[in-house]
């Protein structure tokens, strides 16, 4: 994704980032690390600012984005502000470093998402870790390898060209003499900052990167040893709960805490509309908050699902919200041989990460440390600094690898609550949101209304395309199909519910609308849906995934029949190419849709870890089933009506189709991020398959048979 698009995507939601630079002095850093070799990446200057030996006491370059340290004990430590949330980046980034450094992957420790130890990072979202952090780490690792060879050459007084690095050692190819990396760095303080584009090892020559290695620390997940944010305990830690308002936009009218105050060792914290409790054990805290009697003034007649789409269309946000007309597209639409006009909708959906928001906050004087699950540790650090009016340098946020996020944990509400309560009692406090809190007080994937008008020739050539999206977002909005006249617009609107990022963001909604519409056009020109797409497409990578998925699926081998349908959809976003074929069984009498089989073809450049990638793509398909068939946040008058897993249905074992993931490894292309786009193909393919089975078009997600 281009930088401007990333900023647009970020700016659309709640995320406002101020850039803060890391202040640690390089000498301090080497002291912390106990000497050795340190390579920093300077993303700004075109040439290395400083080369060779010795710490010269300069401050770190101001755009340092990551660093790699090699200790005398041969231990390699990589520091990055990215975080591990189940997407397996801890493993795949280590593979990339191991590849360029020529070391076993097991010798690498990744320090991630700790605002005191790692460089500033905007956050882990937008499928950016692999395409941006990956090359940065590779560059540093390569530089480290070159420095080690240079240092060994000086020590042995030989020409570096006779030396080679492999398996954590530099060896003299002529006499067999060798030293481990740690031995070379012993007693040294080697530092270098690098930039530019050194010659990285091409993917075609990768040995460690590109391999299907298991997830780092896998044993800790099957033994329960891994410590998630909600598992953190601190000496003397107490448990906090927050009293939630009776609805959105509510104000506190009256409060009676007398019953709660009588509970043992319980403190009530009341500050404006914020009411919280702290107790020595979690169940007393729960009891205390349930015994508080509060009256809330909830504004009546707030928007519900019923008025949602009318509201979105009639409440533009700012100037960009209003629609502009494009005369040439209107003309092309008017003169087209075949015309089609439809609208599509998506509901608000919840991320529902299995680990809800959780934080432990601890004050030491005016310094605050918070362990919390977030995709933006530095963003949460700044939120905390602002909330408590202290400098960001006084706040440390530590992000233990968490129980997933899917774009849902960008913000720091829970961290602020824990810190507020910890400040009140002078002890560390843990706050873990309940499932109902998570379903109500987190934010949602935006709902959206999408209008598409199109024109085609009778021979199946697309000639006009108009795609207007209200509220859900601009991701994946541009059509990859060839069309001479097009008008694609995103209209920000006011949102009745708090909304934010989500896996793939609006790419799901925009692909749903576009790929359903393409199917409808194919139908009206009497062409096979795959043939129609390929006819209007020149992008060879999208061609390849569509043809691969179709071949593996056996597209066209069996015709759809009543109650049994096949559908296809494809797309590209954030550098990932996806095509999805599905087979559905529909029982109109029972209003039941059962997805029987899914084949997804995926291509995102050179594959860093096919094992992790396959797992992730499988997960994207499974998660997509929820949004396609049953997930929707039900709301009315400022309240969420389905804030539990019993009412908000997510995909389960019984919903599983047979799923086949076909990975296309393009070693000649840079690796793109793969966490998100795999989710976009399923819903339109299901809609198209339902049409093939029933003759009914379902244009609203989730798709429910009438």
């Amino acid at each position, binding site marked *: 994704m281009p930088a401007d698009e990333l900023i647009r995507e970020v700016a659309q939601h709640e995320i406002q980032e101020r850039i803060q630079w890391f202040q640690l002095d390089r000498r301090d850093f080497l002291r912390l690390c106990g000497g050795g070799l340190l390579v920093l990446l300077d993303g700004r200057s075109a040439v290395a600012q400083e080369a060779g030996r010795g710490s010269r006491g300069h401050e770190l370059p101001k755009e340092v984005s990551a660093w790699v340290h090699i200790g005398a004990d041969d231990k390699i430590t990589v520091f990055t502000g990215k975080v591990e949330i189940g997407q397996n980046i801890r493993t795949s980034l280590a593979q990339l470093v191991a590849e360029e450094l020529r070391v076993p992957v097991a010798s690498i420790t990744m320090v991630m998402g700790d605002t005191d130890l790692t460089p500033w990072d905007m956050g882990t979202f937008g499928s950016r870790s692999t395409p941006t952090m990956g090359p940065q780490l590779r560059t540093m690792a390569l530089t480290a390898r070159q420095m080690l060879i240079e240092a060994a050459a000086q020590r042995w007084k030989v020409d570096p060209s006779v030396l080679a690095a492999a398996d954590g050692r530099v060896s003299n190819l002529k006499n067999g003499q060798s030293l481990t990396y740690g031995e070379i760095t012993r007693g040294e303080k080697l530092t270098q900052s690098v930039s530019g584009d050194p010659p990285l090892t091409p993917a075609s020559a990768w040995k460690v990167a590109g391999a299907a290695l298991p997830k780092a620390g896998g044993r800790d997940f099957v033994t329960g040893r891994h410590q998630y944010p909600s598992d953190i305990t601190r000496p003397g830690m107490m448990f906090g709960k927050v009293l939630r308002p009776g609805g959105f936009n509510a104000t506190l009218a009256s409060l009676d805490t007398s019953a709660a105050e009588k509970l043992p060792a319980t403190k009530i914290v009341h500050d404006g509309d914020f009411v919280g409790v702290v107790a020595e054990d979690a169940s007393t805290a729960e009891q205390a908050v349930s015994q508080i009697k509060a009256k809330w003034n909830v504004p009546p007649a707030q928007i519900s699902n019923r008025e949602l789409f009318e509201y979105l269309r009639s409440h533009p946000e700012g100037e960009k919200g209003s629609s502009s007309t494009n005369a040439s597209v209107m003309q092309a639409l008017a003169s087209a041989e075949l015309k089609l006009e439809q609208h599509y909708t998506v509901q608000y959906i919840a991320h529902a990460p299995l680990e809800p928001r959780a934080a432990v906050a601890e004050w030491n004087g005016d310094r605050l440390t918070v362990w919390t699950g977030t995709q933006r540790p530095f963003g949460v650090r700044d939120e905390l600094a602002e909330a408590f009016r202290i400098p960001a340098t006084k706040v440390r946020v530590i992000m233990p690898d968490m129980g*997933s996020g899917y774009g849902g944990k960008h913000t720091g509400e829970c961290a602020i609550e824990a810190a507020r309560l910890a400040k009140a009692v002078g002890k560390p406090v843990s706050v873990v949101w309940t499932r109902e809190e998570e379903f109500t007080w987190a934010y949602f994937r935006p709902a959206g209304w999408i209008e598409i008008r199109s024109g085609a020739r009778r021979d199946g050539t697309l000639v006009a395309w108009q795609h207007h999206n209200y509220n859900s977002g601009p991701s994946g909005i541009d059509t990859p199909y060839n069309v001479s006249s097009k008008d694609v617009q995103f209209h920000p609107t006011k949102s009745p519910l708090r909304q934010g990022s989500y896996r793939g963001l609006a790419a799901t909604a925009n692909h749903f609308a576009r790929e359903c519409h393409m199917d409808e056009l194919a139908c009206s020109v009497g062409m096979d849906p795959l043939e129609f797409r390929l006819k209007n497409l020149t992008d060879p990578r999208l061609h390849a995934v569509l043809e691969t998925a179709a071949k593996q699926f056996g597209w066209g081998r069996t015709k759809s029949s009543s109650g049994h349908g096949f559908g296809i959809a494809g797309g590209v976003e954030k550098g990932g190419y996806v095509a999805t074929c599905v087979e559905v069984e529909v029982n109109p009498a029972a209003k039941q849709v059962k997805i029987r089989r899914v084949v997804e073809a995926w291509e995102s450049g050179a594959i860093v870890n096919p094992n992790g990638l396959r797992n992730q793509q499988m997960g994207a398909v499974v998660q997509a089933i929820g949004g396609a068939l049953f997930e929707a946040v039900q709301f009315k008058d400022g309240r969420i009506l389905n804030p*539990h897993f019993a009412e908000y249905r997510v995909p389960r074992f019984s919903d599983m189709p047979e799923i086949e993931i076909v990975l296309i490894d393009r070693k000649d292309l840079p690796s793109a991020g793969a966490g998100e786009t795999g989710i976009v193909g399923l819903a339109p393919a299901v809609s198209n398959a339902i049409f093939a089975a029933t003759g009914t078009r379902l244009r609203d997600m989730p798709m429910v048979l009438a």
Partner: protein
Amino acid sequence: MNDFRLNINGTEFPIRAPGDETLLSVLRNRLHLTGTKYGCGEGQCGACTVLIDGTATRSCLTIAASVGGAKIITIEGLESHGSLSPVQQAFLDEESFQCGYCTSGMILSTTSLLREHSHPTDQQIIEAMDGNICRCGTYPRIVAAIKRAAQLQEKGGANHAS
């Protein structure tokens, strides 16, 4: 506050907790056995699953004081002399997790299932496991792990957790 004892992973623990406190809360917040997870508190997600006398049970809906006479096994109690149980080994071999937060509950539900059906059919797997949510969508790999675990148990190569 009530005083009672719980037999967890073969060890007797004296517990002092309110009479209505859940087993999940006792495990996590009093004994720091944090491998058992909170996912919903309503018996809808399976993240808190433990074995009570061998049967998969939602610890979030179980009053701790009510299981004083039972044998409770949590994820921390499945290993034997440092080696993984067949189910744990199968989950690791198949890498049946992404974020891993559901994994403890999945492993204990599987352990209970295999006690009842040593070679479960697909339908038996769905029936036994449908109450466990994996939000990362790793279900197909979990099914593969369940089948692998059944084979490992048959071979008896790894230890058997009760």
